């Protein structure tokens, strides 16, 4: 079985499981019974979860007959994707503690470095200058022009 076909099967399973989980969560909602009211807060979630389950089954059926298109030859660099997601998560996780100005500089330098194309040289000095200017410009603009209280961390401006 080809990768594309496996992915279609996996998607069918994901839809089906999502539908079942959503239905279970809906069944656990505590809705007070009111005489004469047939459509309560659980009605729409039940309809949606049922549709999801049906779609999951249909997707599994469609995956059986799925004919993959010829590969386009594009190489997906999952290593860079993983590093990018990791950097974003780290940035957000430490934002409150270390503050916006510092974390933004660190994140930008690291992200520029990770995304630099193979045929270009990593220029830490230039990246640092761009990161410091961008961080300061964004912080000062939103702090003083739009009164946004971005986290400052240990540095109180």
């Amino acid at each position: 079985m080809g990768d594309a076909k496996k992915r279609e099967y996996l998607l069918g399973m994901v839809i089906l499981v999502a539908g079942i989980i959503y239905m279970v969560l809906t069944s656990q909602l505590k809705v007070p019974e009111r005489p004469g009211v047939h459509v309560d807060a659980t009605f729409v979630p039940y309809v949606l979860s049922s549709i999801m389950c049906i779609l999951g089954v249909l997707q599994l059926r469609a995956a059986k007959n799925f004919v993959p298109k010829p590969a386009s030859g594009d190489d997906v660099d999952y290593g860079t994707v993983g590093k990018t997601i990791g950097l974003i998560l780290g940035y957000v996780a430490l934002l409150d503690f270390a503050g916006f100005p510092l974390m933004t500089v660190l994140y930008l330098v690291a992200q520029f470095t990770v995304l630099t194309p193979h045929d270009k040289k990593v220029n830490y000095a230039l990246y640092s200058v761009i990161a410091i200017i961008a961080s300061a410009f964004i912080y000062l603009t939103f702090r003083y022009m739009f009164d946004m209280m971005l986290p400052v961390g240990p540095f109180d401006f």
Partner: protein
Amino acid sequence: MLSLFQQGIEAVFTFEIFGLVFFGTVVGIVFGAVPGLTSTMAVALFLPVTYSLGAGAGISLLVALFVGGTSGALISAILLKIPGTPSSVATTFDGGPLMEKGEGAKALGVGIVFSFLGTVLSIIALVFIAPTLAKIALSFGPHEYFGIAIFSLTLIITLASGSMLKGLFSGVVGFAFSTVGIAPIDAITRFTFGQTQLNGGFEILTVLIGLFAISEVIKVAENVKHEKAATIGRVNMKSIKGFGFSMQEFVGQLWNGFRSALIGIGIGILPGIGAGTSNIVSYIVAKKRSKYPEKFGTGVIDGVVASETANNACIGGALIPLLTLGIPGDAVTAVMLGGFMIHGIQPGPLLFTTQGVLVYTIFAALILSTIMMLICEFYGLRIFVKLLAVPKHILLPIILVLCVVGAFGLGNRIFDIWTILLFGMVGYGFVKAGIPQPPFIIGFILGPMAETNLRRGLQLSDGDFMGFLTSPISGAFLMLSAASVFWHIYQAQRARSVKRRAVVELEA
């Protein structure tokens, strides 16, 4: 109407709004021109900037970004042969070959002028259709709104590109996410897992930024390391007279332009689809109706005219359902709906009676940004060309930081930043699985409208579902919804059987 229009024009000619419209148009053109950035992203990113502005100024800025972003895509479509946004895919078909033939200036001139004309025609349609539709919509009750919401949901799902199953799933998931928080009518808390931050549900802005901007940044990371800088075509603007084409060529394209504008306006009005679809449909129609269809794709201005007029004509078209019914016509207007909500304004028929000046300020801002788009694109072309060379590995991380600031600004909470990351991952998952994103947004926005009006309607008709069918407008929309779904299923089945027959014949 005339007095309101006058007040609208007076409002946009204040220093603040005039400056914002100019800024928005220029930034929009840059976002449209740089491949990987879109007008949806531009509008989503600048929503936080509107927090501290008045409603008129804020919405005018968003409108200018929309106009600039839709038109700016033609620059890279012609000079790089890469569409800046999906709205200019068809522009590359003839714009690229024209550039290769040394007629790049003509292609750009035609594209800019007909972008302008397409926008102007769509604004005329908007100004005349919207108030009339709003008057009719004033008599709508819960039954009618439920019918319209269901019709819009089914339409975007059936018109979603690619698999109908995946489009449907996308819409349903969007609807499901909208059920998080306090339920309408009886105020039951749903799916919050004890998190009080979720009581109000997910903020539309966090959903939009996550789905359209964060997922795009992650997607670019897939191949940015192997990317080679695109060659930017050179155009000598100094030797060009006027807009680079003759009066005879202009007159010869008027009917093509008018037809393409009508296609663009029509597609713009339909919920869920917009400029990304209209440019291709219009190009196909222009080719079919042409006296020389064989020349399309080799570098004829007809192709550029069809694509650029139609994509810009979607602007006014997409604003018609947004302003009159509160239903977004495409992804950009979905983001703009978020902009209205930030300012405490609910688009819909009442907007025309309660916020008449604001509505006409929007119309005037549209006209002003269209004129600015024409001037800026033509005279600032050399600057925009230079911006195309800004490397993505520098640009995209800065955009991500702006997304983070935008999410934080919603309620000064880190929680909202985590939310954009959640929806960014959902959006990236959708991209990898080939699931279209627009149905998710439409499901997320129209879901609560459908649920609230379903429950209100049932309260009005004592729990009787027949009320939705006996109301002529609601009944008609529900019938149309059913018809559109069945028609799509029939078409899909027919296509499958044709494919199967072809495989059998090939094997025989």
